[in-house]
């Protein structure tokens, strides 16, 4: 690896992942895909969201990597959901849509903690703060 390549390895890439890329995968494959991209210093903007048990699996997997992969500090993750309106009608509508087309009504940001300083989230927006190099 040349010096230039090594420097490029520290660059960060934004990776947009449409829901169709993971919709047919089982949980393990989804986690593997995401962790693989994070280890390539990619910040993933995922259309949709992971299931709660997939999120914990992702945390468990990344925890086992801390200390074993140089410079890896874990991940930053945040989901902005489309179901902020809690009215009964909207809840039912959202649940039907979820059964039919999956969890597409959300955006999830996942990236390496070594690059992301903070993900600020409030009910309606996500702000991504990167570390200065």
């Amino acid at each position, binding site marked *: 690896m040349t010096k230039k390549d090594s420097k490029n390895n520290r660059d960060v890439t934004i990776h947009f992942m449409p829901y169709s890329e993971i919709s047919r995968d089982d949980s393990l494959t989804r986690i593997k895909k995401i962790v693989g991209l994070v280890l390539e210093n990619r910040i993933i903007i995922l259309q949709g969201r992971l299931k709660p048990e997939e999120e914990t699996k992702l945390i468990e997997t990344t925890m086992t990597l801390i200390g074993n992969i140089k410079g890896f500090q874990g*991940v930053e993750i945040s989901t902005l959901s489309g179901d902020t309106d809690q009215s009964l009608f909207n809840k039912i509508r959202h649940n039907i849509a979820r059964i039919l087309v999956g969890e597409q009504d959300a955006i999830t940001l996942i990236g390496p903690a070594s690059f992301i300083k903070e993900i600020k*989230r409030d009910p309606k927006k996500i702000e991504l703060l990167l570390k200065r190099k």
Partner: protein
Amino acid sequence: MMIKQLKEMTRKFWSKFFKSKGQVKLGFYGPPNAGKTSLANKICQDWLGEDLGTVSKIPHETRNVQFKEKVEIEKDGRKLEFKLIDTPGIATKIDFEEFMKFGMNKKDSQSRAKEATQGIIESIKWLDDMDAVVIVLDSTENPYSQVNITIIGNLAARDIPILIVANKIDLKKSSIKKIQSAFPEYKVVGISAKSGEGMESFYDEIFKLVKRAK
């Protein structure tokens, strides 16, 4: 998919069957430094006269699951018995250099970070075994953290009753309202594990929570 759902139904059936015969396992979950151990200590001091674990300003002080096999509380003529389980704080990242800012040397910081990652894995594994959970949040912090959402989402998916505690209400920046608006589907009770403020309401809610778990 069908097999997975059947497995989950069977698991819930057997866990409810055995739960009714044994002691309720009450877990304390939340992010690091929210005051889980401080609250567990407060309960243990109130009813057993002893502490459960050590507390510190340095994050990830609790790195192993800690128990009190039998805690018995009494209020208004009612009695309640449960097993108290205090878990390490769940986080998505750990940087050993953060510990060095608290004056720890590099070697100790690295070792603390390693233990903290194992503690997080242990906490997650224990989620399946809980009968009811108290989520302890720092009421001075933004509640919309993904860790909070992930823990609550996992417990909801497992049908485990939840009580949210907004800790540190003695501090100026504290806001119970923020936590209530972030999790409107759950009961939120404001306390200060340090000063004891709000503990009476907390014990009332614990009776209700454990009843839901039975």
